[in-house]
């Protein structure tokens, strides 16, 4: 993959992941996982999802040699 395409790929993928994670934490989606009757560990579950998304981003970038 040419260097400029790799750059664009890196930026696009990172921005998409960032958008997803910020959506998880700072949007009306908090109404679901932070509902008053949600289990106490649900914030940790969402946090774990964010960590998994971060891991998959790194895996994807590594696969493309970035």
């Amino acid at each position: 993959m040419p260097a400029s395409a790799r750059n664009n790929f890196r930026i696009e993928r990172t921005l998409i992941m960032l958008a997803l994670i910020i959506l998880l934490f700072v949007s009306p989606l908090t109404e679901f996982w932070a509902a008053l009757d949600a289990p106490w560990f649900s914030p940790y579950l969402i946090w774990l999802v964010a960590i998994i998304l971060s891991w998959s981003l790194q895996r994807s970038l590594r696969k493309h040699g970035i």
Partner: protein
Amino acid sequence: MEFELWQLFLISVLYLGILFVVASAAEHGWLPSWLVNHPGVYVLSLGVYATSWSYYGSVGLADREGFVFLAVYLGVTIAFVASPILLKPILRLIREYQLSSLADLLAFRYNSQTAGVLVTLFMLSGALPYMALQIQAVTDSLSILTGETQGHLLALGFCLTITLFAILFGARHLTPREKHDGLVVAIAFESLVKLAALMVVGLYAVFGIFDGFSSFALWLDKHPEATEALMQPIHDGPWGMMLLLSFSAAFLLPRQFHMIFVENNRPDHLDFASWAFPLFLLLLNLWIPPILWAGRLMDLSYGPDLYVLGISMQSQSVIMPVFTFIGGISAASAMIIVTSIALASMCQTHLLLPVSFFNQRQRGINLYGFLLWTKRLLIGLVILSGYAFYLFLQVNQELTDLGLIAFVAVAQFLPGIFGLLYWRRASRLGFISGLIAGATLWVLTLILPLFHKAGWLSGTLFEQIMLPMSSTDSAFWTLLANSLLFVIMSILKPQSQQEQDAANACCSERLYQAHAIPSALTVEQFENGLTETIGNDMASREVAKALFDLGLENDNLDRNQMARLRVQLQHNLSGLIGPVLADMVVSEQIQADTTARVAIADTIQFVEKSLQGSRLELKELASELDSLRRFHRQVLHDLPLAVVTISPDLQLLSWNRAMQRLSGLHEEQVLGQQLTALDAPWCDLLTQFLDSEQPVLRSEKVRINDETSILNLFKSDVSDFSDSGQHGFVVVVEDHSEIYKLEGELAHSERLASIGRLATGVAHEIGNPVTGIACLAQDVQAMPDDHKLQQDSIRDILKLTDRISSIVHSLVSYSHAGRSLDHDPERIPIHQLAEESIRLVSLSHKGKQIEYVNNCHQDLETMGDDQKLLQVLVILLTNACDASEIGGRIEIETREHDNELAIHVRDHGSGIDDKIIGKIFDPFFTTKRTGEGTGLGLSLAYNILREHDGHIELNTRAGEGTEFIIRLPAATPLRRQHA
């Protein structure tokens, strides 16, 4: 259960002793390198983020603000997810320019010593309350465990021990290129201890207080308000602002910046950390809610900030409270150690050196020693300042409040970081004015109220002007003021050229950065220039280090190498004395030649590489031009002919695929190199060819990879399209070896064909002497007693056999396959050559009936292949015979003029028709009937003569005869002229 103070003191000393051992083991190589360099160690070292605030204060924050406490770590997660576009670019800059701190980075980007000073002062102000928090946590934990209020001497003892550790393991090296492995491993060890201790307390809370997971779950079912109290603040608390504050703190806090960037050994460890570090933080914080609820259940007497310790004291074990205490020591000591090292580096570079650097030089003090010892001294001063802040503040402040003050402080650098990475137009004035505005509001809203609470401001003016508010509200207003001024002032005041250069260097979208060509012509001149400022010893060492880094020898460096050396020197000095001072020293002492141009080779390589790596999307015309550039570049690269392009400075600009195949040298090995640096034979071949006046070099024998090749070289000048009038070169190299071999085979075939045509004559010429021999033998046989007849007959027989031998020898020699490419040219006497050719041609039936006159001078010689030149004469004589009448005359004579000899072959035959003169040298052109000639004769003669640096001319008149003139270089100086 309570402890004695001396017991806890001993435990602390023991633990810190273990820390020393761990750090020493890493420094001295007692630990295996795979462990020291493992990415997991790097991740754990980042755990320095979790201080006493996390260890103790998170429970307190959870009690007050519910799950908002998690935002302190979720913001970090977001920052690390953004690592590819946020942290990695910063790491690249730190490594490339050898920067040691955030102050270095921002001073470099905004090209301003003032920026560096402001950042340092502000960072120091924000860190002191945070360090005081750590010391307070340690003394509070001692109070809890001993049941007594603790004196401050113990805290001082703790600070002094930490100072020793920080000096021993954090100030061993001067430059950021040399990492402190011991420090990293020790901090990683402390993170493990913290994690283990919290896990133990958390598990005890679940299994010891709640009697297991099922009881715990049951308790939660019965008390839903417990979970609701944690969840509610997410919706109506300062959730978003806490995320932003922790996002900035994740990499802008001095300790975080130092461990993430300055002590980073390998960039790919940051990729691993982007998910592993948030995972570590998740595991660390998983236990906070159970600890909080267990503390509430037990109705502990001290505040939630100390539930961790309180719960562990309720166990019947001695070990658990001790282990928990040690976890607290780990959390506090790690923060203080790393923060003091980071701040000391900043203070040295931006507060101390700008004032004292040149004075030290004048006093002739060894700079390396000065830098090392001042750093150590500053570490001590910073820690003692933190202790002084703790001592004199004496505020019963929540741990998290002190921590948030630091968070709001570092958040003021966010606009500057944005300008660093993404906004090239951000200016020095914008950054400084934004920072001053944000810092002023920070002082008014957070620091003054803190002092007021400590009783320092009663009755003063400050009491009137302070604006107390929560940390998150302060964060909002300070960032707003900062960002507005940053943007407005950057737009209003244009940048200077130096600011633009610095902005281009930092933004990853830069296309090209030119290196200034220094005025100094030799490395010694560099050293002499630097000696004045940094001393002879340091100048020599730094120049040697820079040469080593670039892989250069101190041996006739060209201008571009000197330019690169200047840049590398500046980078290395930046690691020692900061980027601004380094730039000042290098700019003043190694001045740039403003009229010199950067060599095209350097430019082309930079532009090509930068275009390929650039994130910029070129639009419209620029995009079209770029596509055309790539297309033409590919055309050149894929041409089936070997092509080399050379700059006016004799640097290789391109070396296409065909040239790589021919030479065996890969493009990457040669591009950017000087022509003279190439391996044999290319260095001499190309250099001499470029020096010569000739645009073409034909049939050059060249030894490539132990084989001889025949090359044709063509060159052309190419303007560099500048006003300098200089030009580069394009050289096309044609491998003629295969064609040369084919031509040889063709010539051989033609010789065999001509021998075939001579067959009848040869048979006759050999038959006659054989008949004569037979007759003479019969005579001897008939008269055995006639001795005189026998002698005469034997003599005649020998003459006839000689004649036969001569004919056979001539034929064999003429029909030979041809010599190899390695054959060296020989001296060829022209007269003998002409005799031999006449002998061969005379073998034919027609040839015998022609009179040959050989007027070639006996002494004239040429250099070459005698067999090929013989073939040329045979071809010309054969044609002359065919054109002549029976009994006609053919003359061969030589003339000489100016080291050139001319061989004239003249017949008086039919001549050549004007209509076909232009075609007679074409291959396969013949006027003879089929079977009488191949039509290759004159074409071969032409090529053979060209190989010998000669040529052939023709004078003819129809009906009067033809004269061929062969011109060849003479082998010896001419003595006299011949007609």
